[in-house]
């Protein structure tokens, strides 16, 4: 069960650390794919990573359909 999906737009511009719990998911989009976070529950927008030629493990990559599926199942989505 996903509580909050956080969409992160800028490199290393993460929400307040205490805000993220185990049930939350971070998705790096746009330039945020340039730096990878040190926490565990993160994914990246596949198209934004591939377009920028940034290597991110396949298992971390989500296409837009995946992102919308996650958002639908979550309690809310926050673009940080």
């Amino acid at each position, binding site marked *: 069960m996903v509580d909050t999906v956080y969409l992160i737009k800028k490199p290393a511009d993460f929400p*307040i650390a205490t805000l993220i719990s185990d049930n939350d998911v971070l998705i790096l989009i746009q330039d945020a794919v340039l730096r990878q976070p040190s926490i565990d529950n993160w994914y990246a927008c596949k198209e934004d990573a591939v377009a920028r030629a940034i290597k991110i493990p396949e298992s971390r990559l989500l296409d837009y359909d995946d992102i919308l599926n996650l958002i639908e199942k979550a309690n809310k989505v*926050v673009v940080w």
Partner: protein
Amino acid sequence: MAKKNAVCIIKSNPFSWKTFEALRQAVGMAMDHNVSVVFIKDGVFALTNWHPEMIGVPSFDKSIEALAMLGGKIYVDKNCLDDRGIVKLKDFGVEIFTKSEEEVCKLIKSAEVVLIW
């Protein structure tokens, strides 16, 4: 139509049009929803005695008043004020509540809609 708990987080400094638009949005929402506006990071400069008209930006004092009148709540992160050496807030004629980072997180977690500016 559902009345929602909406939280508007203002993290950018107010020295462009962003905060003005954010507060206009918050006022609109306060007619239907429970709205909390939270100033964090450089957003806290919005509550100081600065002079928007000097740099071609409109004042949002009226939005702050309207927000309070419609039952919206205004919060500011205490740590972010301290970090910036801000000791005195401008008197908008409305109550501004200080919150700890932990309390701000709780507010965000319990919200149904969160809009970050």
